[in-house]
């Protein structure tokens, strides 16, 4: 009797082992969380110092349209209006997403509904390859092919939002496509069967049932593409021209948050306004990344509720 009792109360070897594993994984998670929190704290505290230490007003920063850090305007306030870059970022993001979405969905429909065999054999590897190409290569191609192409057609320098959109379009296309493929794959087979069994044509089935059922997934795919476009720095910086001006058309040089960041970060001194204001740009990027993240979660939840 006593022997059994001690057997149950004593920690067995197996249980010690379990606890050990649990501790290890907890430490890893805690480390990751800590890193993320420190990055957030660091970027945001630096970003806010533009407003706290240097006394720039938030309104002037977000809506001012003159970006000349280091100089002061007529009223004595530093010229650090970030509106040109904010607008530039949104323009290239939205335009490339609008351009990429139809292509991505069409490619996904082909791969899942129309020709799964060719899709798996040819398109899948191509898309995986496209995802793996480093962004500097895309930027280089953009610089040597797209920029001269646009210069020849529309005149001007060729640098600008249109070139950036083109490069981003190619860059986000594989991301959006492969996520759209997942979304269509997740539509249960029996929806298709039900539609076909009722005399639906293949196209009606795809258009009215599959796409409709996959809408939350497809939206998530597009938002992911937008997040990628919004955060892309190098390739955009190579083709957009990097003029911190409020964009008035698509073919004159403009800039994005990321392109100005990468351009200027080596040329400022820590602790100065010029440096702090770059951190403020980074804060906007971080907030936007968070926003995209929340958006995809929200779409996922809405979609799940419908089912």
């Amino acid at each position: 009797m006593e022997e059994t009792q001690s057997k149950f109360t004593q920690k067995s070897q197996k249980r010690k082992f379990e606890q050990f594993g649990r501790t290890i994984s907890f430490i890893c998670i805690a480390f990751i969380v800590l890193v993320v929190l420190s990055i957030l704290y660091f970027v945001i505290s630096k970003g806010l110092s533009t407003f706290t230490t240097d006394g720039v007003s938030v309104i002037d920063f977000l809506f001012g349209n003159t970006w000349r850090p280091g100089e002061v305007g007529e009223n004595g306030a530093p010229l650090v209006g970030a509106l040109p870059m904010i607008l530039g970022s949104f323009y290239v993001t939205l335009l490339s997403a609008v351009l990429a979405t139809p292509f991505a969905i069409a490619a996904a429909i082909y791969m899942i509904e129309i020709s799964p065999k060719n899709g798996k054999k040819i398109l899948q590897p191509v898309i995986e390859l496209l995802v793996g190409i480093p962004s500097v290569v895309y930027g280089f191609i953009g610089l040597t092919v797209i920029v001269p192409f646009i210069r020849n057609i529309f005149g001007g320098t060729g640098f600008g939002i249109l070139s950036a959109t083109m490069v981003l379009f190619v860059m986000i296309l594989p991301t959006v496509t492969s996520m759209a493929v997942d979304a269509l794959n997740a539509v249960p087979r029996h929806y298709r069967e039900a539609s076909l069994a009722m005399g639906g044509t293949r196209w009606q089935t795809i258009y009215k049932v599959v796409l409709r059922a996959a809408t939350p997934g497809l939206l998530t795919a597009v938002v992911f593409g937008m997040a990628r476009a919004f955060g892309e720095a190098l390739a955009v910086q190579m083709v957009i021209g990097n003029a911190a001006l409020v964009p008035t058309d698509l073919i004159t040089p403009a800039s994005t948050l990321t392109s100005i960041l990468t351009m200027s970060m080596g040329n400022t001194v820590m602790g100065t306004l010029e440096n702090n204001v770059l951190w403020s740009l980074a804060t906007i990027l971080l907030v936007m990344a968070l926003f995209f993240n929340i958006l995809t979660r929200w779409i996922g939840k809405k979609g799940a509720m419908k089912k």
Partner: protein
Amino acid sequence: MVTNEKIIETNDVHLYYGKNEALKGITLDFNPNEITALIGPSGCGKSTYLRTLNRMNDLIQDVTITGQVKYKGKDIYSPKMDTVELRKKIGMVFQQPNPFPFSVFDNVAYGLRISGMKDKQKIQHIVEESLKKAAVWDDVKDKLHDSALALSGGQQQRVCIARVIAIEPEIILLDEPTSALDPVSSGKIENMLLELKENYTMIMVTHNMQQASRISDNTAFFLQGHLIEHGKTRQIFTNPTQQETEDYISGRFG
């Protein structure tokens, strides 16, 4: 001239999944306005046979079908056959209730809309009538615009039947329509099927012997890809001619 006698005739139907022969020469006819039950143990080919009747097996790769399937005297496997039109005439209800993730109304209206009906009042009317015929109107009349997926399994299945009725097929194929449902829901569906018999020909796969004996006029017994025996339900259940049929019905195997 097409006689009114048989609505579907199948003659020596063989079906192969790759090299595996799933149906080994089925010859069977169906009368209009009758319910025929297809019974047999799992994997005997009865569902496969059912799906040859509206060409749903076309969706699976590597399927070869030989023999003849005639609907009103026309070979449905002839290259000229329009499967879209065929499937409007031969509707199908599946084992798992499979409403679309739309509202109840949109589910039932789906078939009408894809065949190009635009008149909203007419659609509304047919949807209501179909839901009434499927004996689910009282359950859903206040939730027509809620998602069909929020309904219970039995209600979903009846909505699926209403969805098929809405396009006014002549034949309804039912692939174990109640096997995923509780006895009360199953009972409701059985009663409804008996009422629908006036206007539709029904062919139903079922694992439930009582169900087959309760509602079917004819019964066909399948075993390992062969059609062992078929005839009037009463005769099959009381006085089968084949030993296998008797063994199966009395529960000695399967």
